């Protein structure tokens, strides 16, 4: 078995709001091994982004706080780590890219400055050397004419190019893990394909792992080896990508897969979409039982009484359902 890089255990990240405590992440277990791509899927508000940001402790505290759990990075818990120690992990060991390439770069500095800043922080380089390294990174992510573009400001780049710059920045210290938080959601489909391919290429070149946060099942199916499905702050299913799409066990996962229109199906297979009725429950006072119970078509009495545990239904296939 491969070496475990990241091991999140029973993580609870809650937010204090005017209306009460929002349990955005409410007991999440997640493991990422060296060299693998793990997809974390779920709808908006399911806690996938908060989980990702919790790993790098990028949550504003207050209003957020770690209520419980451990984030073990190569065996070391990050939660109690002091800020200076955490800064040595950021970018050098774990890097992150975000959904909105348009707003993720500081508009008042050149992209060269911003890439150079990371490099100089973690490696002892001169300004000139850092600039050269930034040019090299831009070349690596296939930005045309990197020697010239390194002095351009973010607003002079298109959305897809900015995401490339973000990837260049994230890769510049050769991290072991890249957290990609909806990296292609804001991009057009042809640009999305380019970025996904670039990430794949980077992964192979640097031998790193990827934690891919997304709501698009298609993206997961095409890029990940293992998938974690989240619903209302909890992991409901975890399996290899083949097992998850071939034999989804949780009713939510099943619904999610069946509610997507499939462009590859012929007319004869075309059918009405299977919608999941209702809406996501409030994370302020989540229901006591299974959080999906109110929308589940197989719901039973036992579902509303206690939260079912995440149990191994088949080797490597975990599901949080009594069925």
């Amino acid at each position, binding site marked *: 078995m491969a070496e475990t890089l990241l091991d999140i255990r029973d993580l609870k990240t809650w937010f204090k709001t005017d209306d009460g405590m929002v349990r955005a992440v409410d007991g999440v277990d997640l493991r990422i091994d060296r060299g693998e791509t793990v997809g974390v899927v779920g709808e908006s508000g399911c806690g996938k982004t908060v989980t990702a*940001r919790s790993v*790098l402790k*990028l949550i504003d505290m*207050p209003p957020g706080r770690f209520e419980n759990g451990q984030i073990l990075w190569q065996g070391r818990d990050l939660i109690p780590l002091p*800020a*200076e120690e*955490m*800064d*040595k*992990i*950021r*970018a*050098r060991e774990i*890097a*992150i890219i*975000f959904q*909105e390439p348009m*707003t*993720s*770069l*500081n*508009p*008042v500095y050149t992209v060269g400055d911003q890439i150079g*800043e*990371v490099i100089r*922080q*973690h490696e002892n380089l001169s300004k000139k050397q850092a600039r050269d390294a930034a040019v090299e990174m831009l070349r690596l992510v296939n930005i045309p004419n990197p020697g010239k573009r390194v002095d351009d*400001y973010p*607003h*002079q780049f298109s959305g897809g190019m900015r995401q490339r710059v*973000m990837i260049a*920045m994230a890769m510049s210290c050769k991290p072991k893990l890249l957290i990609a938080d909806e990296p292609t959601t804001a991009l057009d489909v042809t640009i999305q394909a380019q970025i996904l391919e670039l990430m794949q290429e980077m992964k192979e070149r640097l031998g790193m792992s990827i934690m891919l946060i997304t709501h698009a099942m298609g993206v997961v199916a095409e890029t990940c080896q293992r998938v974690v499905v989240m619903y209302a702050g909890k992991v409901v299913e975890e399996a290899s990508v083949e097992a998850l799409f071939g034999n989804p066990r949780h009713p939510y996962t099943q619904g999610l897969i069946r509610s997507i229109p499939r462009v590859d199906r012929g007319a004869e297979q075309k059918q009405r979409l299977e919608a999941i009725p209702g809406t996501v429950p409030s994370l302020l006072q989540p229901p006591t039982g299974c959080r999906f119970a109110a929308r589940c078509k197989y719901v039973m009495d036992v579902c509303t009484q206690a939260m079912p545990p995440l149990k191994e239904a088949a080797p490597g296939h975990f599901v949080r359902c009594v069925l």
Partner: protein
Amino acid sequence: MIPSLLGISVVLFTLLAMAPGDPFDELATNPAVPPEVRAALRLKFGLDDPVWMRYWHWLIALMHGDWGFSFVSRVDVSTLIMQRLPVTLVVIGASQVLAIAVALPVGVLAATRPYSLFDQIANTFAFIGFSLPTFFTGLVLILIFSIQLDWLPFVYRADIAATGWAFYWEHFKQSVMPVTVLGLFQGAALVRFVRSSVLDVIRLDYVTTARSKGIGERKVITRHVVRTALIPVVTLIALQMPIVFSGAVVTEQIFRVPGIGSLLISSMLANDTPVVMGVTFVSACLVVIFNLIADILYGWLDPRIAFR
């Protein structure tokens, strides 16, 4: 900039032209001026010309620095203003520096620790600061530091009979109160603005990106937050210049600082119209110049502007 100055000159001229009576009333009521001289003056200043002609002549004269003649002091208005202007600029400049020096750190600190005790105290003082009218703060300071404690003089004297360090010390002592009054009033409004501007920036995605780089919170705040948050602050400082001038007029009046503000008030009370017009125009010009400086600073702070 030129259109604004022209606009201001039109506003001023319109006011002057609409005002009843004639700017030469003062001369008219003065028995020492013979009627034929008055008629000659009317002709010279073209008072019987159509309005636009009068405006044109007035504008040309204005641009040549020919701003008229003070009826009271019997000197050229431009000379009078040039005598008084440096004092005002020093007071305003010093108070702006004080305001920024107080507001920047306090505002940034308050915004990085929202709802902390520090934030709440800073916020309360900011509210008190800009709710206190300058004339009242001035009187209270005089009451405390000049009358009760007798530390500081409450009359500003232009002619200090001292040399060397003593000269500067006296100047410093008499400037403390006017500068403080004006500076704290400005600073209070600025604290709130800096705080909100920083709060706006601190939520942005690129600040999270900066944090994820592991460069440390200090660098994140100074390099990535403050720099961008300053952009709207610069605009606000420029936009507030008219208010600063208003404050300066009052402060100069209270502490009897011989600047253009007190010149304005004394000329009004003495019905010295050319001086009143001149001072108003000069202060308008200064505001426009400050706006221009702000625009330049803005372009320098924000690279996106240059490409528009």
